């Protein structure tokens, strides 16, 4: 039985258990008082039976699949000839790999000798036995447990509380997955970054003014020695993000004000979804647009005025990134402006304030904390944005604030450091993790500030 059919069978069994439990609940109910005499509603008894039928078997199934491979491999290795078993662990794992490839019919390194063929056959045998055993054990466990629970069903059984407890545990597990994943990501990045900082002092990284990560891999190789000062890279990110925000904040904010305060319902119903389409365009497409349309346009225009514009200018990447971010700013600002109570507008209008005075002096200030929160979220989005800058910003880490020159960003450097065949013990590759860690910390701080500001805003009218 393959794992998939086993799973489906388990599901079918569970649904059968549901009906079994429910029917049993009706049967044990007091004939006079009917289902009123049960502690919980009949479906809870059904659910309880179904959960007990499905969950233990699923658990067994998961554990079995996790350890199956290791156990079978160990069994097979134990039967291999003496001279193979005494090989070094590296070589042994190669042999095991070959056996597994042989089992699944893939290409094998070297030629097949009889002992390996025998091992592969043995592997296949054990695997077949194992999956058959799993099916038998899991299904009989499901049936036995379901029947046992069914026997325990009586009016006093607190089925609802037990079902709710199980559901609560499932909900808690789901909500912690995101947290543990975040922690896992941070730890993995942190681990590699610490290895980097063991080679390159952290002060050199944080305060160095030169970024040139190429370095000789072998002693006899000709190459630059490598300089890992993060400041030019972060400055590039800051420059491009700043240009993006200069584009996105005024345009986004003003379109939000127009949409929420001036536009009639019909226009709003059309314009708002259209603006949000901007957010749905893949960033790769923005990248083409920046590299192939905007950058040459800026260079040519600059040429007309006698300016020396590099073909991969920070301006082009920043402008396009700004356009990408407009819907973030406008959509979030629109929401907070709409959340400002109509009573405040009425109050200002009732005092004789004009429409524009009401907006600039009452509505926008009242919405400002929310708007700031939205803008900060947009900033962290701009800082983390990768695709546009990979395509439109340069690779040279120039320490400059001139938007007409090429700069590079943190994300671009991480991509270039890790693309292609790399060895993971050279500072060059490890630098990517250090950059990633720093970037993560920066956006984390921005997000925390944004959340704090947004929360403060919520207390405003209450």
């Amino acid at each position, binding site marked *: 039985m393959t794992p998939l059919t086993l799973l489906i069978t388990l599901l079918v069994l569970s649904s059968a258990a549901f009906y079994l439990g429910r029917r049993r609940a009706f049967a044990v109910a007091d004939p006079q008082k009917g289902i009123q005499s049960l502690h919980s509603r009949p479906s809870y008894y059904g659910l309880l039976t179904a959960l007990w039928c499905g969950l233990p078997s699923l658990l067994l199934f998961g554990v079995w699949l996790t350890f199956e491979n290791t156990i079978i491999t160990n069994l097979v290795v134990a039967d291999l000839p003496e001279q193979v078993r005494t090989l070094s662990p590296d070589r042994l794992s190669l042999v095991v790999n070959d056996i597994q490839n042989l089992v699944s019919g893939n290409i094998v390194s070297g030629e097949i000798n009889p002992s390996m063929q025998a091992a592969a056959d043995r592997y296949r045998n054990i695997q077949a036995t194992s999956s058959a055993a799993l099916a038998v054990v899991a299904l009989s466990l499901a049936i036995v447990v379901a029947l046992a629970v069914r026997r325990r069903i009586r009016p006093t059984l607190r089925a609802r509380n037990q079902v709710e407890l199980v559901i609560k545990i499932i909900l808690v597990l789901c909500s912690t997955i995101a947290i543990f994943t975040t922690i896992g990501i941070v730890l993995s990045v942190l681990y590699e970054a610490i290895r980097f900082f063991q080679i390159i002092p952290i002060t050199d990284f944080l305060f160095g003014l030169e970024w040139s990560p190429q370095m000789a891999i072998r002693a006899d190789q000709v190459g630059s020695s490598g300089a890992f000062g993060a400041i030019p890279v972060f400055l590039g990110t800051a420059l491009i993000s700043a240009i993006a925000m200069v584009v996105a904040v005024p345009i986004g904010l003003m379109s939000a004000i127009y949409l929420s305060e001036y536009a009639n319902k019909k226009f709003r119903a059309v314009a708002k979804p259209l603006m949000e389409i901007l957010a749905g365009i893949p960033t790769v497409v923005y990248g083409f647009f920046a590299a192939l349309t905007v950058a040459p346009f800026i260079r040519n225009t600059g040429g007309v005025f006698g300016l020396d514009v590099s073909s991969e200018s920070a301006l082009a990447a920043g402008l396009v990134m700004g356009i990408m971010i407009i819907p973030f700013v406008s959509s979030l600002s629109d929401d907070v402006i709409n959340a400002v109570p109509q009573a*405040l507008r009425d*109050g200002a*209008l*009732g*005092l*004789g*304030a004009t429409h524009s005075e009401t907006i600039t002096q*009452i509505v926008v200030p*009242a919405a400002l904390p929310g708007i700031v929160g939205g803008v900060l979220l947009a900033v962290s989005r701009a800082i983390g944005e990768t695709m546009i800058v990979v395509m439109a910003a340069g690779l040279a880490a120039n320490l400059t604030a001139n938007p007409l020159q090429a700069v590079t960003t943190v994300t671009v450097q991480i991509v270039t450091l890790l693309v292609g065949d790399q060895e993971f013990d050279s500072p060059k590759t490890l630098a990517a993790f250090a950059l990633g860690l720093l970037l993560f910390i920066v956006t984390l701080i921005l997000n925390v500030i944004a959340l704090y500001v947004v929360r403060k805003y919520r207390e*405003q009218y209450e």
Partner: protein
Amino acid sequence: MIDSQIPVIQDKEHDKEKELEMLKGLKTVGEITAPNPRMTCRNVNVYYSGVQAIFGVSLDIAGNEVIAMIGPSGCGKSTFLRCLNRMNDTIEGCRVEGEITLDSENIYGSKIDVVPLRAQVGIVFQKPNPFPKSIYENVAYGPKIHGLTQNKAELDEIVERSLIKAGLWGEVKDRMDKPGTGLSGGQQQRLCIARTIAVSPEVILMDEPCSALDPIATAKIEDLIDELREQYSIVIVTHSMQQASRVSQRTAYFHLGYLVEVGPTPQIFTKPRHRLTEDYITGRFG
């Protein structure tokens, strides 16, 4: 007293249509005019997206009087109130017909701008709505936008005078820079009244100003309304008939968009002339 020919009013849709049919062409009972009127309304009709909400209401608002508007929910008293300073302009699909004048000038005329009009006819809303600014800024906001003062000292004086008039000065004078939203409900409402009188209006409209307040705060506001009458005309919409009888000199009874009866407050509450008015004040419905 009750005419058995007329069915008892119930809050049902088909009854409402029947009643509207009966009310058609109703002529207001009582004296709609007043000597030296501040505002006059003649034959005012209001429509929300084509549905008529006010039917041919004519009413004068005299100087230095408090006129109360009472009536069951949905009778159009708030709608009529909001016509008086054109707050209805902000509602999409709202159309006002007829003539409303302030000091003999039609406020719906083409020459009138709503901005100065609303400075002359201030409004206090049902729910206190202080701006999320400091207490000082709340009161100073109106004088600032209308340029009523030359310097900070004058502005300070207006703020202080308005707060004294609103009976709030003693409670807030030590925390003028604290947010107005931090005050209690009754204090917030008095702050909104102070904010309104800071721009020196002629008429103050009050849309159920006490319905969100406790009895003690309500009593304070009612005392305040009585004092304010010396300088302003006050139009107050209220659900509480006791309140109407306590604070007002004249009372207007609205029913389904019609002005049924208007007269001196004591007379309305003791000897109503229209049967609908009587039904309402004796608590037969509403």
